[in-house]
């Protein structure tokens, strides 16, 4: 299969807090860009993603501590994130807007705040 480079702009939530727009240009050697997300009680890093519409990506999710969930209801996507394992989700951002993702496995006193956002741009 012919490798095709696609670029996806990934904006870190931390950069937003700093008032700047730190954009990481990540490239993959396969059709789908891979975005790594680390879950730990009670955050995701990064907790904000900006993706281009109709450009598929693969989310690679790991947890630094306990069993977590990752749910993106508006795209009907979810997975468990097991300790010591990598969970992968292929996401086709086929609609514009900002959408919430969250942990959907109760993980403790900060569970309700464990969320992030995905923004899909043209």
């Amino acid at each position: 299969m012919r490798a095709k480079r696609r670029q996806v702009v990934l904006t870190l939530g931390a950069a937003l807090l700093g008032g700047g727009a730190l954009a990481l240009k990540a490239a993959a050697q396969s059709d789908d860009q891979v975005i790594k997300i680390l879950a730990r009680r009670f955050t995701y890093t990064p907790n904000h993603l900006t993706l281009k519409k109709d450009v598929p990506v693969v989310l690679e999710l790991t947890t630094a501590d306990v069993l977590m969930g990752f749910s993106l209801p508006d795209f009907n996507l979810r997975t468990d994130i097991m300790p010591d394992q990598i969970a992968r989700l292929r996401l086709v951002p086929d609609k514009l807007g900002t959408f919430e993702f969250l942990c959907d496995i109760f993980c403790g006193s900060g569970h309700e705040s464990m969320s992030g956002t995905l923004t899909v741009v043209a």
Partner: protein
Amino acid sequence: MRQPIDRREFMRLAGYGGVVFASGLGAACSSYPQASGKPAELDDFYFVQMSDAHWGFEGPPNPDAKGTLKKAVEAVNSLSQPPDFIVFTGDLTHTTDDAKVRRQRLSQFKEIVSELKVKDVHFMPGEHDASLDHGEAFQEFFGNTHYTFDHKGVHFIALDNVSDPRASIGEEQLQWLASDLKQQPQDANIVVLTHRPLFDLYPQWDWATKDGAQAIELLLPHPNVTVFYGHIHQEHHQMTGHIAHHAAKGLMFPLPVAGSQPKRTPLAWDPAQPYKGLGFRDVEAQAKQAAFQLTELPVQKA
């Protein structure tokens, strides 16, 4: 026969004036046999729903965190006519990673609600009580997390959608539910009590039950089903087909309307209107019509 109008009038005069909501399609419900083989008595009655006490929570959303539950108990005790029974639809306590503290909170909660004059109280867990230990501590204090009981011709089913931290009822409990429903007449007056919404109210905030649709599918063949739940800390009413779902206010802090703000953080305490958004519910059961009349009551007199 009770006289609900008189009791409401008393509550209004006593400063407990609540908002009334009618539920039910008015489908006739025939008298159906109980275990005794005799027709059950179909009589009007009322019960009280309390929810989301979150005992152990501390923070700005409720400066009276240690007093609110006690005020609610006093309010229920002051009702002019005592309810037939009381249900607590989960999150009795606020979660903690410490199993010892969890049991302390459950114990303290139990001690406070032991002051309720009505002693027929049915408890359900919320995810804060049960999700970190699969309901182990809850069961030590309050027994089973799912069960049924019957009262004056109404069949009550308590469903547990929190002991699994994935917010699922689970195949085993769904089979138990199916088996129980098979024993009920088609037109039985059925009330389901649970913590999370069985339908997808707002999955973006985890306001859903993963396999709740399967429970609803089992319930749908019965024309007289009503669901009372908690979890979202606010009054909410929604239909799925002919099934009415009613969420109750909480007793610690109110939460925002689904999607109305970026995060599901508690609404701020209003010093000008303390305890605003908190309360409990009076449910009038009109057994013969399989209809319910809900009255929302505050934790403190106006």
